[in-house]
């Protein structure tokens, strides 16, 4: 299991929290050739990601290897208050996964 790959910033304004997520991940599509060997670089990308607030899944996404390396994703969650927690979890095509929690500011 991967760890420490997710950075989250969550800022609340009028009940709506804008969440910025930055993940360290190679996001290899599987169709890129290694420039030196000419061999295909094996696919390694996040397929699924979700955000949980108060035990409820509030938003999720499915990705291909065409999401940029070290993915950035920003979204907005309703019905939130400062001090509450948000949890983001991803899973990639190799079955690796990571989660992180952030407090809403």
């Amino acid at each position: 299991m991967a760890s420490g790959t997710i950075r989250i910033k969550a800022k609340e304004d009028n009940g709506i929290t804008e969440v910025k997520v930055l993940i360290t991940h190679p996001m290899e599509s599987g169709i890129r050739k290694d420039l030196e060997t000419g061999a295909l670089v094996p696919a390694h990308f996040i397929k699924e990601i979700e955000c949980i607030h108060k035990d409820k899944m509030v938003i999720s996404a499915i990705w291909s290897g065409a999401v940029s390396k070290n993915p950035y994703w920003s979204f907005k969650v309703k019905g939130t208050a400062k001090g509450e927690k948000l949890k983001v979890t991803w899973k990639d095509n190799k079955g690796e996964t990571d989660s992180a929690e952030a407090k809403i500011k």
Partner: protein
Amino acid sequence: MNTPRRKFLKNVLATGGALVFGTTVLPSMADWPEVAFQAKTADEAMMALFGKDATDSSKIDLIVPETAENGAVVPVEVSTSLEQVESIAIIVEKNPVPLVSQFNFTENSVPWLKTRIKMAQQSDIIVVVKTQDGALYTTRKSVIVAKGGCAG
């Protein structure tokens, strides 16, 4: 005499086994639509994801650069005034694999997102919004790519 039946049973068991393996060993957070993500054209991806075409809509705001200096990192922002949005999909028409991502919303999230995507060459970026009644709405914008992003 028994061979075809055995073969049939063997196939059934093999498929059934794979299904069981798929659901119990790798529980999925969302459904990852393999066929849609393997489609080689935007139309194929649309059909695999939704099974029908989308209607052009002025209620979707797609913000992308006119020219992307680096196709490996193209910023995309999508918002919509459409209500009861279920999902927003991003498709790059001329990428080798056009479907990039799909975002699924709930009553607790705003139909808005920012992401960064790869583009192989100059292409239309297509956004498809699905509402809870199953209706599909779309808009598109062309982006010039100075340096392609799928090889880099």
